[in-house]
């Protein structure tokens, strides 16, 4: 039987063995955290606390009257020591609240809310108040995603359990260990958007999670028809557009959103957070992530408060070897290499990888030999080599015509390039240049 999938894609080594069978480990309560005020795509939050304030675990500490945006909350109980810019995993310094624990365990959660009894507006407001964002890496506010315009009815909600990035196993562990939470969250999300069915999509190499999830359908589906779809193990199967294509056969239109074709995808961790926001009134203040890589002596799956400094976990929780040469937040295909360990876990941190010198080889870029492997690998069915040539010639319009904006930076082209051209980086830059040019043209009324 051929598994459902999309056209293109690559098969990088999976490297999931070291952590896939390790239960998620809760890290000891940190003595301090650094919580960035803005951790979602959208407006910049303003601090709601000042230096010297005592804050409770779960208390809202940053928010803004705008949409899209997502509130942030204290992840430990303690005193606000300072509010100043600090490095974050996107390589930009962002305003952050430094909290020092006072050793108590008081919480300030919201009251539980029955998602199936409350109004749609109340449910959306709960997601907003809980600061829920997509935890797969993009950090888009979930309240906005689950409230598509009325003229775009959503019939299918997909739980994205593909986890196609190598090394990462946190979604898989979450499905194995807390399947009821995931299914309950899926039912809530499906109920909020009025979806007629919900699907849990899993890559074939994680099929062991299937029975655990399926067992919970009876008790937690709340009458919404649910099914499991096994997709081929291929990168980027978990890319939203790719997974929707694999599950439903529908293609998200170029420049469009999944809701345009009646589908919404939610990450596994996000669904668990959704469940907790309703059942426990708990905002998004903790998350699971995988630590791994050749320079990580203790690969594991961790569950830690948002704002936990990676440096603080070493060497108590994570041991790294002396030849660590690269630290990556996220997976190896789309993650960001950071210059220091003084970076906190954020809402979008799905993994932290430690690479050795051998794993951090820098290659000399050669001229494109037009072998076409990038085009075979591109899940967006673009011609990366032609976009690269157009960008080399500073021809942004030509690059645009080939589909530059449709590139979602999965990294598949760079991965296969025999000339070691950093195609993905060039396209990221090219997209910025193109957007700037279009904005300039708009200003000049062209």
């Amino acid at each position, binding site marked *: 039987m051929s598994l459902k999938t999309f056209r293109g894609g690559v098969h*990088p080594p999976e490297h999931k063995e070291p952590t896939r069978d390790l239960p998620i480990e809760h890290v000891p309560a940190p003595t301090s955290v650094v919580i960035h005020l803005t951790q979602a795509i959208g407006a910049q939050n303003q601090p709601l606390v000042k230096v010297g304030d005592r804050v409770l675990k779960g208390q809202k500490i940053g928010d803004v009257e705008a949409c899209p945006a997502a509130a942030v909350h204290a992840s430990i109980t303690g005193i606000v020591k300072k509010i100043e810019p600090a490095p974050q995993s996107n390589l930009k310094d962002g305003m952050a609240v430094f909290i020092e624990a006072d050793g108590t365990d008081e919480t300030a959660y919201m009251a539980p809310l029955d998602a199936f009894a409350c109004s749609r507006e109340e449910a959306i407001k709960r997601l907003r108040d809980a600061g829920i964002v997509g935890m797969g890496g993009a950090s888009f506010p979930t309240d906005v995603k689950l409230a598509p315009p009325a003229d775009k009815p959503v019939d299918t909600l997909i739980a994205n359990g593909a986890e196609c990035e190598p090394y990462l196993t946190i979604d898989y562990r979450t499905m194995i260990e807390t399947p009821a939470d995931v299914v309950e969250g899926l039912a809530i999300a499906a109920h909020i958007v009025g979806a007629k069915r919900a699907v849990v999509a899993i890559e074939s190499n994680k099929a062991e999670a299937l029975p655990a999830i399926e067992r919970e359908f009876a008790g937690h589906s709340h009458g919404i028809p649910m099914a499991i779809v096994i997709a081929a193990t291929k990168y980027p199967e978990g890319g939203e*557009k790719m997974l929707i294509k694999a599950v439903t056969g529908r*293609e*998200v*239109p*170029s420049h*469009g959103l999944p809701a345009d074709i009646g589908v919404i995808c939610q990450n596994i961790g996000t669904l668990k957070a959704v469940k907790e926001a309703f059942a426990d009134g708990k905002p998004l203040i903790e998350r699971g992530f995988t630590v791994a890589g050749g320079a990580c002596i203790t690969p594991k799956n961790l569950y830690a408060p948002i704002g936990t400094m990676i440096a603080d976990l070493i*060497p108590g929780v994570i041991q*790294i070897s*002396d030849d*660590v*040469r*690269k*630290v*990556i937040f*996220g997976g*190896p*295909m*789309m*993650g960001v*290499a*950071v*210059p*220091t*360990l003084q970076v906190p876990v954020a809402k979008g941190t799905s993994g932290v*990888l430690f690479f050795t010198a051998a*794993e*951090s080889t*820098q*290659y*000399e870029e*050669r*001229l*494109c*030999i*037009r*072998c*076409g*492997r990038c*085009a075979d690998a591109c*899940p*967006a*069915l*673009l*011609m990366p080599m*032609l976009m690269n040539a157009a960008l080399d010639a500073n021809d942004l319009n030509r690059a645009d015509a*080939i*589909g530059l904006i*449709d590139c979602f930076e999965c*990294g598949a082209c*760079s*991965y*296969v*390039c*025999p*000339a*070691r051209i950093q195609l*993905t*980086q060039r396209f*990221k830059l090219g997209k910025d240049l193109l957007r700037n040019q279009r904005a300039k043209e708009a200003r000049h009324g062209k």
Partner: protein
Amino acid sequence: MENKTTRLVLSGAPHFVTSNDIQKTMGMVIIALLPALAGGVYFFGPRALLVTAASVVSAVAAEFLFRKALRRETHVTDLSAVVTGMLLALILPVSSPLWMAAVGSAFAIIVAKELFGGLGGNFANPALVGRAVLLMSWPAFMTHWSPSLRAAAVDATTTATPLGILKLGGTLTDVMKNVGVSGKSALYLQMFLGNHAGCIGETSALLLLLGAAFLVVTRVIDLRTPVAMVAATFAASWLFGRDPVFSVLAGGILLGAFFMATDYVTTPVTPVGKWAFGIGAGLMTVLIRQLGNFPEGVTYGILLMNVLAPYLDKIIPRKFGFVKPRKVNA
């Protein structure tokens, strides 16, 4: 602790690459050319190896010295110069002077490739440029053909290629006499095996297809261009009243289609472009064979299409999620 991380590397995603680099790709092409080279030695004697060695050594040396002279990074370990040297040798007569093979591949590397920036910058197939230059410079050497050592009737030291016999007004019967067989199917078989006069590596369809199959299975080459070129040659030859099977087996069609028209750098990358390139190269080859002064036209057929390659890449395939804008009725 901190000393561990003072030398952290920053780089853009992805932080992973395949091990499949240019060197590996070129290595695959070299492996795929070995059967044809072995065929050259079998049919034309060990001198085939000497010609190949001269061409390869000259190509590698030319690339190394030229880049050294320009104080640029040398890339001879990527094996692309070896491929160029081998390809050129395979499209030379076995009797070629060694110095001529060396001059040809040095010209191919320096003028056709390095002057345009090296591998990836060239617009024309270096080996074919080398052959074209040799053909113009030393036509006598380039049209001096030795018969196959394995042919039934070896009584001469020089002969003509099957296409050469046709060009001089001969018929297929004359070719059969030359090859030492009677009957069309016997001729086809000998031509398929490679037992006739021609360039070192072009005569054996069997061995060329063996190498090509390896490249197809390992996904180094795309079948579109060679299939289009062979089909176009077959169809156009038939239209001109030439024996289509003979036309595909004779001369350099298969070597050109599977190893030259599939050259990454100088041929289109788009599916439509690949089909168009193959059809164009096949048509040009037959037109030159039929109407030109030369018996064979693969070299110029492909070189002409090389020039058109950038234009053939204009039609890009459908993008993911791309919906054709509806035509607005004016």
